[in-house]
């Protein structure tokens, strides 16, 4: 079975930020694990999510469907057009994942950071 480990932490920047550290491959077998966990946290009140992808060696289109769904759920009341999400940001994607992010145009929608503190204070 595909396994995806997700560790959840809470940080306080300018606003409360929920940090999800993901480890494993995000493919069609595992993406629901991420999507469901984020959805559960949003239902419990999380409104700002930093997704730490430093432990993700592979992410295919299924992973981006999960990001899409998480972004939609976080920003349902935010008519932001083509501007970047103020509620979902990415941290430390690998080179391979960064390449797919750019190819699919997700860098237009989501801010990407290499530094954790900078990312948390960007919300």
């Amino acid at each position, binding site marked *: *079975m*595909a396994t995806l480990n997700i560790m959840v932490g809470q940080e306080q920047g300018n606003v409360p930020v929920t940090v999800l550290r993901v480890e494993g*491959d995000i*493919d*069609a*077998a595992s993406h629901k694990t991420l999507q469901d966990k984020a959805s559960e946290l949003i239902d419990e009140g999380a409104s700002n999510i930093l997704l730490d992808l430093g432990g993700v060696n*592979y992410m*295919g*289109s*299924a992973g*981006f*469907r999960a990001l*899409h*769904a998480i*972004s*939609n759920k976080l*920003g*349902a009341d935010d008519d*932001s*057009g*083509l501007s970047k*999400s103020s509620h979902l940001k990415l941290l430390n994607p690998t080179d*391979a994942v960064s*390449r*797919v992010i750019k*190819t*699919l*145009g*997700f860098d*237009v*929608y989501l801010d990407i950071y290499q530094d954790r503190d900078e990312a948390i204070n960007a919300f």
Partner: protein
Amino acid sequence: MSTEQVFDLSVKASLDNLRKIRSYIDQAGIRLGVSESALGDLRLVVDEAVTNVILHGYGDADGMVELHMEGDGDAVIIRIRDHAKTFDVSHVEAPQLDTALKDRPFGGMGIFLIRKMTDEAEFIPLPGGGNEIRLLKRNAIQSPGKPA
């Protein structure tokens, strides 16, 4: 010579085997001398192609997927065969990259990635049933492959 090396894998068409299939691409790619960048692309496009076969070809039915990978000069050729129903990808639209994310449809990203990250991608219904996906990526092999 890398052109003499051929790698085959036959596995049950199951999402649980995607990791195994990516590992097969990695191992065959290293033997062929595929560059790290091209190997990342091939890992992605094969994962996307097989995922489509499983979800849209076989659906709830059981079946096998057969993969074949070989070098041809500096190019890599991959063939993916199944015995599933034919699914027409010609109508699959590319993602609307200039549209707000909330307004973007969810589908189409896998086929888009396959076309974007290969030089040739053909989806061919086989006469006896099933399908073959033929993928070609040029300038992929940077060094002579290691002997099998």
